[in-house]
């Protein structure tokens, strides 16, 4: 994902945190699909609700 040229120079703290989180997930051998879904939810769709996160994390295996 590229940074918008308009916002270049702006420190988007949530985006920094989310990027670091996704990187840490990759390092912890999380599936590429999970990381991609979380990236879409947090950084592209900018959805932060529990429901949105649950959909991203538990999409393959719904809660029993």
């Amino acid at each position, binding site marked *: 994902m590229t940074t918008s040229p308009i916002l270049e120079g702006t420190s988007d703290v949530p985006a920094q*945190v989310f990027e670091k989180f996704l990187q840490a997930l990759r390092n912890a051998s999380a599936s590429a699909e999970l990381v991609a879904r979380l990236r879409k939810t947090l950084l592209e769709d900018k959805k*932060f609700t529990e429901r949105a996160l649950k959909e991203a994390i538990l999409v393959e295996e719904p809660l029993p």
Partner: protein
Amino acid sequence: MIRVESITISEFRGIRDLTLDFKEKSFAICGPNGTGKSGVVDALEFALTGNVSRLSGEGRGDVSLKQHGPHVDKRNDPDKARVTVRVTIPSLSKNITIERSLKNPAAAKVVPADPAVLQVLRQVEAHPEIVLSRRELIRYVIATPGKRAEEVQALLHLDQVEQVRLGLQKIANTCEKQLIPLDTAIRQARENLLRALGIYELTKEKVLAIANAQRATLSLPALIDLTETTSLKDGMATPSPAQPQRIPKAQALADIRATREALAEIGSDDTMKRVVEVSADLNVLIEDPAVAASVKREAFFTTGMELVEARACPFCDTPWDLGELKKHVQAKIDHLKEVSRKRRAAETKIAPLIATLRKVQAAINTVVGYAALATPPLALKAAHEYDVHCRTAIERLNALLPLAETITVLANVPIIPQTILDDIRELEQVVAALPEPTKQDAAREWLVVVQERLEIWRDAMRKHKIAKDQALRTRQISDIYAAASDKVLAGIYADVEKDFASLYGFINREDEDKFKAQLIPSLGKLGFDVDFYGRGFFPPGAYHSEGHQDGMGLCLYLALMKHLQGGNFTFSVLDDVLMSVDAGHRREVCALLKKEFPNTQFIMTTHDPIWLRHMRTEGIIGGRSAVHFRNWSVDYGPTRWDARDVWTEIEDYRKESDVRAAASLLRHYLEYESAELCHRLRAPVEFRGDAQYQLGELLPPAITRMSELYRRAKEAANSRNQREIIEQITVREAEFAKLAAISKAEQWQVNVAVHYNSWDNLGKEDFAPVVKAFRDLLGGFMCSDCGEYLRVSPDRETPESIRCDCGKTMINLLKKSE
């Protein structure tokens, strides 16, 4: 992100009609209390964000933007309350206009409204912190650690970070919570299986040994291994469909015994004791109506926080500020934390009761199945009803709310209806009366029942494994997120801490140049300790003065903004933020802003004309980058010390023959302008400790100084033999002397027209030449090109020149030898 060119305010707050031309430069708004400075600040915030923080949020009571934003005379006509700003977006090289009306604050009219522009404006809207008042400043410094963390987090937009943290934590908690009924299901399935097997330990060897013994009775080959897919009845003939299914006598009797034991457990003293304990806890909650309502509200708010995503209310479609709404609701949830704690404690105590009810329900389901196989089938109506009763009770106890219903259900949990015991006894009698099966039939029945229960146990184990994997994964994700966000935030706080210390050290470099600070994040709190002259770290309010605390607030704000917006920190409004800071430190603040934030346009308000001068002297603002409000009235709003306005107003009074008002305004204006002239020309004035100078103490020194400067300029030109310049200065000097003579300002003590309050004796025609004389005199201090007052440069040490801001006037004061 932006720079503001100008603002036009109509019928907004205390302002009727006002336009200020910032020219994208830093700008100061000066004036006594109550002259409308904050109205301009509010208008700027409104135009850029659609909100006025002074009128919204915590502690604002019944005050609201829509109701109290318009001028009081237009309170029923919010459409008339409008603010228009012309803004430049440097990164896009675009000029845009934003217009908002209080009729619909969320709907800004933006021209041109192209996507790139709107994206930048959304960013601006998302950063209301560009407007900083003293009240907000102090929030960063002397707030409690928890409150400060909230403020700083809001500034850094950490609410999103926090929302995700809470969301992931909740998902992990929910997944872990799902394991509880699955644990119960496994335990029940295992107990049923063990009971059918007739053993107490579930090991592969024991199961195979018993199963193979039964298989041998049926001449089936022994099973070598027991895997996940092994069927204990492998090879056994499938019963023909016509063959009625029979009750496995031995197993049925064992299950009936187990049902009695489960019922005995639910009717036991232990269960009763727990019911009494939980009921007491819930009664404490329900007996306090406020708390009981809070329990409901807490559940409502929490659900609402999860569901609210749209930009308008789903019921009435009224637009809302989603961020503000969430903040508001979160505050309510936080307030109900104690209620949440009590609720969780009650839920923990209820959990074993739910497990026991599940056990009973499962046992009853089993025996009900046997009843259907009896000849004739037994109805077991009471057992069926109790099964429904258990299911309803489990649902109610899981839901917890409404509390009154839960308490009623709890009271019935240990009560076992006699009818169900009668049903079970009837079934037991029927089963006991069944003929004993043959060895082969018993073996066949045993293998069928055990295989069935083995499948149930395997299924329960599979579900549990899936849920456990999910619980582990979601917990791991939650933990990874917490670690990642902690690391990023620790880095940010370290940077902000360093910048803050550096900025504060700069403005206090005289005695605190080695100043240090500590921002300590911990469990949702943000500690803030500062060094006190090397004696250790203490809270800012412990030893530092109020003025120092204001300075800290500003520096912390600037450090945060520097980190948050970096190169895009191009605009900021500082509303009277240095009220408690002394003149010397204000000068340092000016130097700091100029040095560290050269690309930021600051709009600053102050009631202190001295600070206004500091801003000019330090070069933060230019000569024309300020407005000085002189008074305010509800009918006209703020009026400024603007030459055009003042002379027009004086003339209007005079024409109406109100010479008293005209002369009063003239005198006050001349006092204001004379102070400015003395400052610019470095005129010696008799010092007054109270800084309350009258016109007679200011204007004559300014005139004398101007004359003296011309004399020095002639001497300087003469030392260089610059004849032409000497002639030019002589002309200027003569013209100025003539203007001064006409005004008689230097004979102030005998000037009856103004000084002796004899206006009543003057007619409007008599006063006209007085006005003209003073207007012309002030003109004599100005540059004929730019119309700005001349000033001596530099502003300290030996005067070197008389000059103006546009640079057209430049008169040397230094002789050749100097």
